[in-house]
């Protein structure tokens, strides 16, 4: 991430949030379902 410039930081945050948040939601949902295996 060394080459991050001031102007690209908001773009980077937005781009990674756009893909990261749905993915995190999917992972959380899957983990929640997977808990059934350990009950």
């Amino acid at each position, binding site marked *: *991430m060394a080459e991050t*410039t001031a102007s*690209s930081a908001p773009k980077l945050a937005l781009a990674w949030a756009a893909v990261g948040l749905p993915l995190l939601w999917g992972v959380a949902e899957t983990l929640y379902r997977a808990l059934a295996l350990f009950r």
Partner: protein
Amino acid sequence: MAGLLSKERIVARSNFNRWLIPPCALATHLCIGQAYALSVFNLPLTRQLGITHSVPGDWKLTELGWVFTIAIFVLGASAAVFGKWAQAQGPRKSGLVAAACWGAGFLVGALGIQLHQLWLVYLGYGVLGGCGLGIGYITPVSTLISWFPDRRGMATGMAIMGFGGGALVASPFSDFLMKRFASDTSTGVVESWIVLGLVYFLFMTGGAFGYRVPAEGWKPEGWSEPPENSQRLITRDNVTPHEALRTPQFWLLWWVLCLNVTAGIGVLGQASAMIQEIFRDKITPSSAAGFVGLLSLFNMAGRFGWASLSDKIGRKATYACFFTIGPVLYGLVPLSGKLGSPAMFVGCFAIILTMYGGGFSTIPAYIADIFGPKYVGAIHGRVLTAWSAAGVFGPVLVNYIREFQIDHGVSKDHAYSVTMYIMAGLLVIAFFANLAVRRVAERHTERPGKPSSTPHGATPAHA
């Protein structure tokens, strides 16, 4: 419009931040990864006419299974056919075509469900959507390798991790949509497919317009091309897609991928039934569903983890890990049944699934190392036909072996043991195929002054 989509239009400025490219790749792969979650629609699709229960005329599960099989087959075929085109046209145009095919595949499929015409679902999701899968899968590969010559494995692993992660998002999202649209007269599948088609089209289009290709001669700051390393097989030369087919290395990598996928895909489809039949008294259907979810997580994590590790230890060594650890774990699965240890069973499959995912995500970097980075997208597209073959071969092999044993009096919980030993055997064969991979002979490579054997239309990754 053609200008807007052209490769020349998206050459990055000197201060462009390369870390903006992986989210674009993830946007594509997260959408097409839905394919792994298609099974959430299977049961509702078997009661499209009866709504609450299946009635005569409703589709059977065996008929619906072909939707996924066709899509995976077309994925490999379209990646092979359009790989060269996608690389030549650049990621924006090919990404947009993938978005259009994938989105339209859902819409045509929804029409097929609404009209209760299964052939239209095969055509829509299977063929049109399959083209979206194939073109979308290869679209970011060469772009990522151009931007991350110093971390090829990590970069492509990140994108291909998205394919694994796509199912994790699509599965609960599809459940939510079906519940939202279900009524006394509808299962909610048609409406869900229309929403999914539109959402995926928009998301993938956003990703396609975010792609940039590096300017000719661009290199990461402070990075210089490493010296050629015969031990790690990394070459500076390039082999054209046409010429690659004439090398033994191409076919060795094809078999490496095919056998790794066959072993993984064969057990993925059976995981839920397998754990319930082997541990009849300990595992309920709901905990078996949790097990399948856990496998998806490990599949996704392996895609990033193993591909990143391959940057450190080399691709050949990474696959050697898969093909030595894998057979041991497959061999331990029947033992876990005998010992009555679900924890051991789950642990074995979790690691196996990381290696299944890792096999997919490390192959683009392996191809770039062996054949050079210039035509990696096109060659990767052709290697992906191995996935098509495995997609048909793997489940058939597992189902056939299981049925054969049950027909011959073997109990259901023991019927999987032979399957596991055969899967271990496949990985041992893959070990030797990987071991046989050597540097490509110089006569196959493009060299300055040497006439190129590139057929018309093939252009370099970032020409």
